[in-house]
Protein backbone atom coordinates (compact mmCIF):
# COMPACT_ATOMS: atom_id res chain seq x y z
CA UNK A 1 0.00 0.00 0.00
CA UNK A 2 2.58 2.51 1.07
CA UNK A 3 5.94 2.63 2.76
CA UNK A 4 4.47 4.33 5.80
CA UNK A 5 6.13 3.34 9.09
CA UNK A 6 3.20 4.63 11.09
CA UNK A 7 -0.40 4.77 9.98
CA UNK A 8 -3.35 6.00 11.98
CA UNK A 9 -6.75 5.15 10.54
CA UNK A 10 -9.94 6.74 11.76
CA UNK A 11 -8.46 7.48 15.16
CA UNK A 12 -10.88 8.96 17.69
CA UNK A 13 -10.75 9.84 21.34
CA UNK A 14 -13.46 11.49 23.31
CA UNK A 15 -13.39 12.67 26.87
CA UNK A 16 -16.99 12.61 27.94
CA UNK A 17 -18.82 14.48 25.22
CA UNK A 18 -15.74 16.22 23.86
CA UNK A 19 -14.10 14.65 20.82
CA UNK A 20 -10.45 15.58 21.36
CA UNK A 21 -9.40 13.60 18.31
CA UNK A 22 -12.10 12.93 15.78
CA UNK A 23 -11.79 10.31 13.05
CA UNK A 24 -8.26 11.27 12.18
CA UNK A 25 -6.01 9.47 9.71
CA UNK A 26 -2.37 10.19 8.97
CA UNK A 27 0.88 8.53 7.93
CA UNK A 28 4.51 9.00 8.81
CA UNK A 29 7.22 7.64 6.51
CA UNK A 30 10.84 6.87 7.23
CA UNK A 31 13.07 9.85 6.54
CA UNK A 32 10.04 12.11 6.46
CA UNK A 33 9.41 14.72 9.08
CA UNK A 34 5.69 15.08 9.54
CA UNK A 35 4.65 18.12 11.55
CA UNK A 36 1.27 18.55 13.17
CA UNK A 37 0.25 22.12 13.87
CA UNK A 38 -2.92 23.68 15.10
CA UNK A 39 -4.25 26.07 17.69
CA UNK A 40 -4.24 25.21 21.40
CA UNK A 41 -6.80 22.57 22.22
CA UNK A 42 -6.78 21.14 18.69
CA UNK A 43 -5.94 17.68 20.11
CA UNK A 44 -2.29 17.47 19.12
CA UNK A 45 -1.00 16.15 22.44
CA UNK A 46 -3.95 13.78 22.68
CA UNK A 47 -2.96 12.48 19.24
CA UNK A 48 0.58 11.79 20.48
CA UNK A 49 -0.76 10.10 23.60
CA UNK A 50 -2.95 7.86 21.42
CA UNK A 51 -0.05 6.97 19.16
CA UNK A 52 2.33 6.24 22.05
CA UNK A 53 -0.32 4.23 23.87
CA UNK A 54 -0.60 6.36 26.97
CA UNK A 55 -4.27 6.90 26.19
CA UNK A 56 -6.46 4.14 24.77
CA UNK A 57 -8.21 5.20 21.59
CA UNK A 58 -12.01 5.24 21.57
CA UNK A 59 -11.90 3.87 18.06
CA UNK A 60 -9.60 3.53 15.08
CA UNK A 61 -6.45 1.55 14.26
CA UNK A 62 -2.78 2.29 14.58
CA UNK A 63 -0.41 0.38 12.32
CA UNK A 64 3.28 0.54 13.11
CA UNK A 65 5.82 -1.20 10.91
CA UNK A 66 3.05 -3.33 9.42
CA UNK A 67 1.66 -4.49 12.79
CA UNK A 68 -1.58 -3.41 14.35
CA UNK A 69 -0.50 -1.92 17.68
CA UNK A 70 -3.85 -0.37 18.63
CA UNK A 71 -4.20 -2.46 21.77
CA UNK A 72 -0.59 -2.47 22.93
CA UNK A 73 0.63 -0.90 26.18
CA UNK A 74 3.05 2.04 25.88
CA UNK A 75 6.09 -0.03 26.94
CA UNK A 76 5.39 -2.56 24.21
CA UNK A 77 5.07 0.17 21.58
CA UNK A 78 8.30 1.66 22.87
CA UNK A 79 10.04 -1.67 22.47
CA UNK A 80 8.84 -1.92 18.88
CA UNK A 81 10.74 1.27 18.16
CA UNK A 82 8.70 4.27 19.24
CA UNK A 83 10.35 7.00 21.22
CA UNK A 84 8.50 9.98 22.57
CA UNK A 85 9.20 13.25 24.27
CA UNK A 86 6.71 15.15 26.40
CA UNK A 87 5.39 18.66 26.19
CA UNK A 88 6.44 19.14 29.78
CA UNK A 89 9.97 17.84 30.23
CA UNK A 90 9.74 14.30 31.57
CA UNK A 91 13.08 12.92 32.70
CA UNK A 92 14.60 11.38 35.83
CA UNK A 93 15.53 14.59 37.60
CA UNK A 94 17.46 12.98 40.42
CA UNK A 95 19.68 10.91 38.12
CA UNK A 96 22.73 12.04 36.18
CA UNK A 97 22.35 12.86 32.49
CA UNK A 98 24.25 9.69 31.65
CA UNK A 99 22.11 7.55 33.96
CA UNK A 100 18.97 8.90 32.26
CA UNK A 101 20.28 7.63 28.93
CA UNK A 102 21.77 4.47 30.41
CA UNK A 103 18.39 3.45 31.80
CA UNK A 104 16.81 4.12 28.43
CA UNK A 105 19.45 2.01 26.70
CA UNK A 106 19.11 -0.71 29.34
CA UNK A 107 15.46 -1.13 28.40
CA UNK A 108 16.61 -2.53 25.04
CA UNK A 109 18.99 -5.10 26.46
CA UNK A 110 17.51 -8.33 25.13
CA UNK A 111 19.45 -10.77 27.32
CA UNK A 112 18.15 -11.43 30.79
CA UNK A 113 20.44 -9.25 32.83
CA UNK A 114 22.59 -10.55 35.62
CA UNK A 115 21.07 -9.78 39.01
CA UNK A 116 24.27 -9.03 40.74
CA UNK A 117 26.46 -7.45 38.07
CA UNK A 118 26.97 -3.70 38.30
CA UNK A 119 24.81 -1.88 35.79
CA UNK A 120 27.71 0.37 34.82
CA UNK A 121 29.77 -2.58 33.64
CA UNK A 122 27.65 -3.33 30.56
CA UNK A 123 29.79 -1.85 27.81
CA UNK A 124 27.19 -1.99 25.06
CA UNK A 125 24.57 -0.21 27.16
CA UNK A 126 27.04 2.41 28.37
CA UNK A 127 28.26 2.99 24.82
CA UNK A 128 24.74 3.44 23.53
CA UNK A 129 23.99 5.91 26.31
CA UNK A 130 27.16 7.89 25.61
CA UNK A 131 26.46 8.00 21.87
CA UNK A 132 22.97 9.31 22.55
CA UNK A 133 24.29 12.06 24.81
CA UNK A 134 26.92 12.88 22.22
CA UNK A 135 24.31 13.10 19.46
CA UNK A 136 22.45 15.88 21.26
CA UNK A 137 25.65 17.63 22.33
CA UNK A 138 25.45 16.85 26.02
CA UNK A 139 28.51 14.62 26.34
CA UNK A 140 30.30 17.20 28.47
CA UNK A 141 27.38 17.22 30.96
CA UNK A 142 27.20 13.43 31.34
CA UNK A 143 27.83 13.25 35.08
CA UNK A 144 25.72 16.29 35.92
CA UNK A 145 22.42 15.65 37.72
CA UNK A 146 19.52 16.21 35.31
CA UNK A 147 18.14 18.62 37.89
CA UNK A 148 21.17 20.88 37.44
CA UNK A 149 20.83 21.17 33.66
CA UNK A 150 19.30 24.22 32.02
CA UNK A 151 15.80 23.97 30.60
CA UNK A 152 17.17 23.65 27.07
CA UNK A 153 19.63 20.98 28.11
CA UNK A 154 16.88 19.04 29.87
CA UNK A 155 14.89 19.03 26.63
CA UNK A 156 17.96 17.84 24.73
CA UNK A 157 18.43 15.16 27.37
CA UNK A 158 14.88 13.98 26.84
CA UNK A 159 15.59 13.52 23.15
CA UNK A 160 18.85 11.77 24.00
CA UNK A 161 16.87 9.33 26.15
CA UNK A 162 14.66 8.54 23.18
CA UNK A 163 17.72 8.06 20.99
CA UNK A 164 19.32 5.73 23.51
CA UNK A 165 16.44 3.32 22.88
CA UNK A 166 17.34 3.36 19.15
CA UNK A 167 13.82 4.12 17.97
CA UNK A 168 12.59 4.09 14.38
CA UNK A 169 9.90 6.66 15.05
CA UNK A 170 10.15 9.75 17.21
CA UNK A 171 7.04 11.44 18.57
CA UNK A 172 8.13 14.89 19.64
CA UNK A 173 5.66 17.00 21.57
CA UNK A 174 6.69 20.65 21.36
CA UNK A 175 10.42 20.13 21.76
CA UNK A 176 11.02 23.87 21.45
CA UNK A 177 8.58 24.90 24.17
CA UNK A 178 10.07 27.45 26.54
CA UNK A 179 13.42 27.61 24.81
CA UNK A 180 15.51 30.68 24.12
CA UNK A 181 16.64 31.69 20.63
CA UNK A 182 20.01 30.00 20.75
CA UNK A 183 18.70 26.80 22.32
CA UNK A 184 15.89 26.67 19.76
CA UNK A 185 18.37 26.97 16.94
CA UNK A 186 20.39 24.05 18.28
CA UNK A 187 17.27 21.96 18.75
CA UNK A 188 16.06 22.67 15.21
CA UNK A 189 19.43 21.58 13.84
CA UNK A 190 19.28 18.43 16.00
CA UNK A 191 15.77 17.53 14.84
CA UNK A 192 16.85 18.17 11.25
CA UNK A 193 19.74 15.72 11.64
CA UNK A 194 17.51 13.12 13.29
CA UNK A 195 15.01 13.47 10.48
CA UNK A 196 17.53 12.04 8.04
CA UNK A 197 17.32 8.53 9.45
CA UNK A 198 14.21 8.50 11.63
CA UNK A 199 10.54 8.93 10.99
CA UNK A 200 9.45 11.90 13.05
CA UNK A 201 6.06 13.18 14.06
CA UNK A 202 6.57 16.69 15.37
CA UNK A 203 4.01 18.76 17.22
CA UNK A 204 5.24 22.33 17.44
CA UNK A 205 4.02 25.89 17.74
CA UNK A 206 7.14 27.57 16.40
CA UNK A 207 6.13 28.15 12.77
CA UNK A 208 9.60 29.11 11.59
CA UNK A 209 10.93 25.80 12.87
CA UNK A 210 8.01 23.82 11.49
CA UNK A 211 8.28 25.22 7.99
CA UNK A 212 12.02 24.79 8.03
CA UNK A 213 11.91 21.15 9.15
CA UNK A 214 8.73 19.54 7.87
CA UNK A 215 8.29 17.72 4.60
CA UNK A 216 4.64 17.08 5.34
CA UNK A 217 2.37 19.28 7.39
CA UNK A 218 -0.96 18.44 8.94
CA UNK A 219 -3.15 21.17 10.34
CA UNK A 220 -5.47 20.07 13.14
CA UNK A 221 -8.44 22.03 14.37
CA UNK A 222 -10.94 20.69 16.93
CA UNK A 223 -9.60 17.16 16.66
CA UNK A 224 -9.99 17.00 12.89
CA UNK A 225 -7.60 17.44 10.02
CA UNK A 226 -8.20 20.74 8.33
CA UNK A 227 -5.54 20.29 5.71
CA UNK A 228 -2.53 18.12 4.98
CA UNK A 229 0.22 18.55 2.44
CA UNK A 230 3.63 19.98 1.70
CA UNK A 231 4.60 23.25 3.41
CA UNK A 232 3.91 25.11 0.14
CA UNK A 233 0.45 23.64 -0.16
CA UNK A 234 -0.33 24.53 3.43
CA UNK A 235 0.92 28.07 2.98
CA UNK A 236 -1.35 28.48 -0.03
CA UNK A 237 -4.38 26.84 1.55
CA UNK A 238 -7.12 29.41 2.07
CA UNK A 239 -8.91 27.37 4.75
CA UNK A 240 -5.76 27.19 6.79
CA UNK A 241 -5.14 30.88 6.42
CA UNK A 242 -8.67 31.69 7.49
CA UNK A 243 -9.14 29.21 10.27
CA UNK A 244 -5.80 29.01 11.88
CA UNK A 245 -3.21 31.42 10.67
CA UNK A 246 -5.42 34.47 10.83
CA UNK A 247 -5.15 37.46 8.59
CA UNK A 248 -1.58 38.37 9.56
CA UNK A 249 -0.12 35.89 7.12
CA UNK A 250 2.87 35.36 9.31
CA UNK A 251 3.90 32.52 7.03
CA UNK A 252 4.62 34.61 4.04
Amino acid sequence: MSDALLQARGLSKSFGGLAAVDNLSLEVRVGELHAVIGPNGAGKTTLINLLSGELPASSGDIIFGGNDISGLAPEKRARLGMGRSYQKTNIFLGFSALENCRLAAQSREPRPLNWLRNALSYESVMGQARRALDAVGLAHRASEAALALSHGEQRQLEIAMCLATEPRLLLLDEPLAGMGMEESLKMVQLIGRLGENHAILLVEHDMDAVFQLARVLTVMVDGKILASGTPEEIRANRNVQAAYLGSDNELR
Partner: protein
Amino acid sequence: MSPITLPRSLLIAAVLLLALFPVLGATFYIQLGAKIMIMAIFALSLDLLVGHTGLVSLGHAAYFGLAAYALAMISPRYEAANLWLTLPAAMAAAALAALVIGFLVVRTAGIYFIMVTLAFAQMLYSLFHDTKLGGGSDGIYIQVRPELTLWGFKPLDLENPTQFYYFVLIMLIAVYIILNHVLHAPLGRALAGIRANEQRMRSIGFPVFAYKLGAFVLAGALAGLAGYLAACQFGFVNPDILAWHQSGIVLMMVILGGMGRLHGPVLGAFAYVLIQEFLSAPALLGPYAKHWQLAMGGLIVMIVLVLPHGIGGFIDIALRRYSYRRIQANGAAES
Protein backbone atom coordinates in the same frame (compact mmCIF):
# COMPACT_ATOMS: atom_id res chain seq x y z
CA MET B 1 21.16 8.73 42.36
CA SER B 2 23.18 5.59 43.11
CA PRO B 3 21.93 3.66 46.09
CA ILE B 4 23.37 5.18 49.24
CA THR B 5 25.52 2.98 51.43
CA LEU B 6 27.88 3.71 54.26
CA PRO B 7 31.62 3.98 53.68
CA ARG B 8 33.29 0.59 53.79
CA SER B 9 35.31 1.44 56.89
CA LEU B 10 32.15 2.12 58.90
CA LEU B 11 30.51 -1.08 57.66
CA ILE B 12 33.53 -3.15 58.65
CA ALA B 13 33.57 -1.49 62.06
CA ALA B 14 29.88 -2.29 62.50
CA VAL B 15 30.42 -5.93 61.54
CA LEU B 16 33.37 -6.21 63.96
CA LEU B 17 31.28 -4.70 66.72
CA LEU B 18 28.47 -7.17 66.08
CA ALA B 19 30.92 -10.06 65.84
CA LEU B 20 32.60 -9.18 69.14
CA PHE B 21 29.38 -8.46 71.00
CA PRO B 22 28.71 -12.04 72.23
CA VAL B 23 32.12 -12.08 73.94
CA LEU B 24 30.94 -9.32 76.25
CA GLY B 25 27.20 -9.83 76.47
CA ALA B 26 25.16 -12.11 78.70
CA THR B 27 22.94 -14.73 77.07
CA PHE B 28 19.89 -12.46 77.32
CA TYR B 29 21.63 -9.77 75.31
CA ILE B 30 22.98 -12.23 72.79
CA GLN B 31 19.44 -13.42 72.17
CA LEU B 32 18.25 -9.83 71.97
CA GLY B 33 21.01 -9.10 69.44
CA ALA B 34 19.94 -12.05 67.29
CA LYS B 35 16.32 -10.92 67.49
CA ILE B 36 17.28 -7.43 66.34
CA MET B 37 19.34 -8.75 63.43
CA ILE B 38 16.42 -10.93 62.35
CA MET B 39 14.20 -7.86 62.35
CA ALA B 40 16.93 -6.01 60.42
CA ILE B 41 16.76 -8.64 57.66
CA PHE B 42 12.97 -8.30 57.65
CA ALA B 43 13.20 -4.50 57.46
CA LEU B 44 15.81 -4.70 54.67
CA SER B 45 13.44 -6.87 52.66
CA LEU B 46 10.59 -4.38 53.13
CA ASP B 47 12.76 -1.43 52.21
CA LEU B 48 13.42 -3.05 48.83
CA LEU B 49 9.74 -2.29 48.18
CA VAL B 50 9.17 0.88 50.19
CA GLY B 51 12.44 2.73 49.79
CA HIS B 52 13.84 1.40 46.55
CA THR B 53 10.77 0.74 44.40
CA GLY B 54 8.28 3.15 45.94
CA LEU B 55 5.75 0.47 46.89
CA VAL B 56 4.52 0.99 50.46
CA SER B 57 3.39 -2.42 51.64
CA LEU B 58 1.44 -2.77 54.86
CA GLY B 59 1.23 -6.53 54.62
CA HIS B 60 4.81 -7.61 54.59
CA ALA B 61 4.43 -9.76 57.72
CA ALA B 62 2.48 -12.23 55.57
CA TYR B 63 5.68 -13.53 53.97
CA PHE B 64 7.63 -13.41 57.24
CA GLY B 65 4.89 -15.36 58.98
CA LEU B 66 4.31 -17.83 56.16
CA ALA B 67 7.94 -18.91 56.19
CA ALA B 68 7.81 -19.24 59.97
CA TYR B 69 4.73 -21.46 59.65
CA ALA B 70 6.36 -23.38 56.84
CA LEU B 71 9.25 -24.31 59.14
CA ALA B 72 6.90 -25.19 62.00
CA MET B 73 4.71 -27.36 59.81
CA ILE B 74 7.42 -29.29 57.99
CA SER B 75 9.67 -29.84 61.03
CA PRO B 76 9.52 -33.39 62.36
CA ARG B 77 8.04 -33.45 65.84
CA TYR B 78 10.89 -34.77 67.97
CA GLU B 79 13.99 -34.40 65.86
CA ALA B 80 15.79 -31.59 64.13
CA ALA B 81 14.79 -30.55 60.64
CA ASN B 82 17.51 -30.17 58.05
CA LEU B 83 18.17 -26.46 57.54
CA TRP B 84 19.49 -27.00 54.03
CA LEU B 85 16.10 -28.32 52.99
CA THR B 86 13.71 -26.38 55.22
CA LEU B 87 15.23 -22.93 54.74
CA PRO B 88 14.93 -22.98 50.93
CA ALA B 89 11.47 -24.54 51.26
CA ALA B 90 10.28 -21.84 53.66
CA MET B 91 11.71 -19.08 51.49
CA ALA B 92 10.14 -20.64 48.41
CA ALA B 93 6.76 -20.75 50.16
CA ALA B 94 7.06 -17.06 51.02
CA ALA B 95 8.20 -16.24 47.48
CA LEU B 96 5.33 -18.21 45.96
CA ALA B 97 2.81 -16.38 48.13
CA ALA B 98 4.43 -13.09 47.13
CA LEU B 99 4.19 -14.11 43.47
CA VAL B 100 0.48 -14.91 43.69
CA ILE B 101 -0.45 -11.92 45.87
CA GLY B 102 1.97 -9.63 44.02
CA PHE B 103 0.39 -10.57 40.70
CA LEU B 104 -2.84 -9.07 41.99
CA VAL B 105 -1.65 -6.15 44.14
CA VAL B 106 1.20 -4.75 42.05
CA ARG B 107 -1.35 -3.43 39.56
CA THR B 108 -2.51 -0.92 42.13
CA ALA B 109 -0.64 2.14 43.34
CA GLY B 110 -0.50 4.53 46.26
CA ILE B 111 -3.12 4.19 48.95
CA TYR B 112 -4.78 1.28 47.11
CA PHE B 113 -1.56 -0.66 47.20
CA ILE B 114 -1.35 -0.10 50.96
CA MET B 115 -4.93 -1.28 51.38
CA VAL B 116 -4.71 -4.43 49.27
CA THR B 117 -1.39 -5.59 50.70
CA LEU B 118 -2.95 -5.18 54.14
CA ALA B 119 -6.10 -7.02 53.06
CA PHE B 120 -4.22 -10.04 51.73
CA ALA B 121 -2.05 -10.24 54.83
CA GLN B 122 -5.15 -10.15 57.04
CA MET B 123 -6.72 -12.91 54.95
CA LEU B 124 -3.69 -15.09 55.66
CA TYR B 125 -3.93 -14.14 59.32
CA SER B 126 -7.56 -15.27 59.41
CA LEU B 127 -6.64 -18.46 57.61
CA PHE B 128 -4.21 -19.42 60.37
CA HIS B 129 -6.27 -17.96 63.18
CA ASP B 130 -9.68 -19.36 62.34
CA THR B 131 -8.84 -22.81 60.98
CA LYS B 132 -7.01 -25.77 62.41
CA LEU B 133 -4.13 -25.10 60.06
CA GLY B 134 -0.90 -24.63 62.02
CA GLY B 135 -2.60 -25.18 65.38
CA GLY B 136 -5.23 -22.47 64.94
CA SER B 137 -5.09 -19.49 67.26
CA ASP B 138 -2.93 -21.43 69.76
CA GLY B 139 -0.08 -21.69 67.33
CA ILE B 140 2.46 -24.45 66.98
CA TYR B 141 5.75 -25.35 68.68
CA ILE B 142 9.04 -26.20 67.05
CA GLN B 143 10.49 -28.60 69.61
CA VAL B 144 13.93 -28.95 68.11
CA ARG B 145 15.79 -26.29 66.13
CA PRO B 146 16.85 -27.10 62.59
CA GLU B 147 20.28 -28.58 62.10
CA LEU B 148 23.02 -27.16 59.98
CA THR B 149 24.66 -30.53 59.41
CA LEU B 150 26.29 -31.03 56.05
CA TRP B 151 27.77 -34.46 55.27
CA GLY B 152 28.28 -35.19 58.94
CA PHE B 153 29.95 -31.84 59.57
CA LYS B 154 28.14 -29.37 61.83
CA PRO B 155 29.61 -25.87 61.52
CA LEU B 156 27.19 -24.23 63.95
CA ASP B 157 24.80 -25.57 66.58
CA LEU B 158 21.66 -23.46 66.41
CA GLU B 159 20.53 -24.67 69.84
CA ASN B 160 23.39 -22.66 71.29
CA PRO B 161 22.36 -18.97 71.55
CA THR B 162 25.84 -17.66 70.73
CA GLN B 163 26.19 -19.88 67.67
CA PHE B 164 22.67 -19.01 66.58
CA TYR B 165 23.65 -15.34 66.93
CA TYR B 166 26.58 -15.86 64.57
CA PHE B 167 24.41 -17.69 62.09
CA VAL B 168 21.97 -14.77 62.04
CA LEU B 169 24.85 -12.30 61.70
CA ILE B 170 26.15 -14.19 58.68
CA MET B 171 22.66 -14.14 57.15
CA LEU B 172 22.33 -10.40 57.77
CA ILE B 173 25.69 -9.70 56.14
CA ALA B 174 24.75 -11.93 53.19
CA VAL B 175 21.41 -10.17 52.69
CA TYR B 176 23.08 -6.77 52.93
CA ILE B 177 25.69 -7.71 50.35
CA ILE B 178 23.18 -9.31 48.00
CA LEU B 179 20.86 -6.30 48.16
CA ASN B 180 23.78 -3.95 47.63
CA HIS B 181 24.63 -5.85 44.45
CA VAL B 182 21.02 -6.04 43.29
CA LEU B 183 20.54 -2.30 43.76
CA HIS B 184 23.61 -1.51 41.66
CA ALA B 185 22.65 -4.06 38.99
CA PRO B 186 20.29 -3.26 36.09
CA LEU B 187 17.35 -4.60 38.10
CA GLY B 188 17.97 -2.22 40.98
CA ARG B 189 18.56 0.73 38.66
CA ALA B 190 15.26 -0.01 36.96
CA LEU B 191 13.50 -0.13 40.33
CA ALA B 192 15.00 3.26 41.20
CA GLY B 193 13.70 4.54 37.87
CA ILE B 194 10.22 3.21 38.66
CA ARG B 195 10.33 4.91 42.03
CA ALA B 196 11.43 8.19 40.45
CA ASN B 197 9.17 8.30 37.39
CA GLU B 198 7.04 5.32 36.49
CA GLN B 199 5.43 6.91 33.44
CA ARG B 200 8.84 7.64 31.92
CA MET B 201 9.99 4.09 32.57
CA ARG B 202 7.05 2.77 30.60
CA SER B 203 7.52 5.13 27.70
CA ILE B 204 11.17 4.13 27.31
CA GLY B 205 10.02 0.53 27.17
CA PHE B 206 10.29 -1.03 30.62
CA PRO B 207 7.69 -3.64 31.52
CA VAL B 208 7.10 -1.93 34.84
CA PHE B 209 4.64 -4.54 36.08
CA ALA B 210 7.16 -7.36 35.73
CA TYR B 211 9.86 -5.37 37.50
CA LYS B 212 7.57 -4.50 40.40
CA LEU B 213 6.44 -8.11 40.65
CA GLY B 214 10.07 -9.24 40.65
CA ALA B 215 10.86 -6.85 43.49
CA PHE B 216 7.78 -8.05 45.37
CA VAL B 217 8.82 -11.70 45.08
CA LEU B 218 12.43 -11.02 46.08
CA ALA B 219 11.26 -8.96 49.05
CA GLY B 220 8.86 -11.77 49.99
CA ALA B 221 11.60 -14.40 49.83
CA LEU B 222 13.94 -12.33 52.02
CA ALA B 223 11.13 -11.65 54.50
CA GLY B 224 10.73 -15.42 54.47
CA LEU B 225 14.36 -15.83 55.49
CA ALA B 226 13.77 -13.50 58.42
CA GLY B 227 10.57 -15.32 59.39
CA TYR B 228 12.32 -18.68 59.27
CA LEU B 229 15.05 -17.38 61.59
CA ALA B 230 12.45 -15.88 63.93
CA ALA B 231 10.65 -19.23 64.15
CA CYS B 232 14.01 -20.92 64.81
CA GLN B 233 14.79 -18.53 67.61
CA PHE B 234 11.48 -18.57 69.44
CA GLY B 235 10.59 -22.18 68.75
CA PHE B 236 6.97 -21.16 68.54
CA VAL B 237 4.72 -19.68 65.86
CA ASN B 238 1.23 -18.28 66.27
CA PRO B 239 -0.98 -16.17 63.99
CA ASP B 240 0.25 -12.90 65.51
CA ILE B 241 3.45 -13.35 63.54
CA LEU B 242 1.61 -12.45 60.33
CA ALA B 243 -0.82 -9.93 61.75
CA TRP B 244 -0.86 -6.32 60.70
CA HIS B 245 0.94 -5.22 63.91
CA GLN B 246 3.98 -7.00 62.68
CA SER B 247 3.71 -5.33 59.26
CA GLY B 248 3.34 -1.97 60.98
CA ILE B 249 6.33 -2.51 63.24
CA VAL B 250 8.63 -3.41 60.38
CA LEU B 251 7.41 -0.42 58.35
CA MET B 252 8.12 1.76 61.38
CA MET B 253 11.65 0.36 61.52
CA VAL B 254 12.19 1.23 57.88
CA ILE B 255 10.95 4.78 58.35
CA LEU B 256 12.79 5.25 61.63
CA GLY B 257 16.07 4.09 60.10
CA GLY B 258 15.61 5.99 56.85
CA MET B 259 14.22 4.34 53.74
CA GLY B 260 16.02 4.00 50.45
CA ARG B 261 19.44 3.48 52.03
CA LEU B 262 20.68 0.04 52.97
CA HIS B 263 21.94 0.90 56.44
CA GLY B 264 18.62 2.59 57.24
CA PRO B 265 16.48 -0.49 57.96
CA VAL B 266 19.28 -2.07 59.98
CA LEU B 267 19.66 1.02 62.14
CA GLY B 268 15.88 1.27 62.37
CA ALA B 269 15.60 -2.30 63.66
CA PHE B 270 18.24 -1.65 66.31
CA ALA B 271 16.71 1.66 67.34
CA TYR B 272 13.15 0.34 67.51
CA VAL B 273 13.87 -2.79 69.52
CA LEU B 274 16.31 -1.08 71.88
CA ILE B 275 13.94 1.82 72.55
CA GLN B 276 11.16 -0.67 73.17
CA GLU B 277 13.33 -2.71 75.55
CA PHE B 278 14.30 0.42 77.42
CA LEU B 279 10.80 1.84 77.72
CA SER B 280 9.24 -1.46 78.77
CA ALA B 281 11.81 -2.36 81.44
CA PRO B 282 10.19 -2.18 84.90
CA ALA B 283 13.65 -2.18 86.46
CA LEU B 284 14.36 1.14 84.82
CA LEU B 285 11.03 2.88 84.67
CA GLY B 286 9.00 1.17 87.39
CA PRO B 287 5.23 1.37 86.96
CA TYR B 288 5.60 3.56 83.85
CA ALA B 289 7.05 0.60 81.96
CA LYS B 290 3.54 -0.80 81.57
CA HIS B 291 2.65 2.13 79.34
CA TRP B 292 5.67 1.83 77.11
CA GLN B 293 3.60 2.00 73.92
CA LEU B 294 2.50 5.53 74.74
CA ALA B 295 6.07 6.72 75.20
CA MET B 296 7.19 4.71 72.17
CA GLY B 297 4.61 6.38 69.96
CA GLY B 298 5.57 9.83 71.15
CA LEU B 299 9.25 9.13 70.73
CA ILE B 300 8.79 7.87 67.18
CA VAL B 301 6.78 10.93 66.24
CA MET B 302 9.58 13.09 67.67
CA ILE B 303 12.33 11.23 65.84
CA VAL B 304 10.47 11.39 62.53
CA LEU B 305 9.91 15.14 63.00
CA VAL B 306 13.52 15.86 63.91
CA LEU B 307 15.06 13.41 61.43
CA PRO B 308 12.92 13.43 58.30
CA HIS B 309 15.27 11.01 56.54
CA GLY B 310 15.55 8.76 59.56
CA ILE B 311 18.60 7.87 61.56
CA GLY B 312 20.39 6.64 58.45
CA GLY B 313 19.70 9.89 56.64
CA PHE B 314 21.05 11.86 59.57
CA ILE B 315 24.27 9.86 59.45
CA ASP B 316 24.57 10.39 55.69
CA ILE B 317 24.26 14.15 56.07
CA ALA B 318 26.75 14.20 58.95
CA LEU B 319 29.24 12.17 56.89
CA ARG B 320 28.84 14.47 53.90
CA ARG B 321 29.48 17.54 56.05
CA TYR B 322 32.50 15.88 57.58
CA SER B 323 34.08 14.99 54.24
CA TYR B 324 33.21 18.45 52.87
CA ARG B 325 35.00 20.10 55.79
CA ARG B 326 37.99 17.84 55.31
CA ILE B 327 38.23 18.79 51.65
CA GLN B 328 37.99 22.45 52.58
CA ALA B 329 40.64 22.06 55.29
CA ASN B 330 42.95 20.29 52.84
CA GLY B 331 42.38 23.02 50.29
CA ALA B 332 43.23 25.69 52.84
CA ALA B 333 46.39 23.82 53.86
CA GLU B 334 47.58 23.57 50.25
CA SER B 335 47.04 27.18 49.30
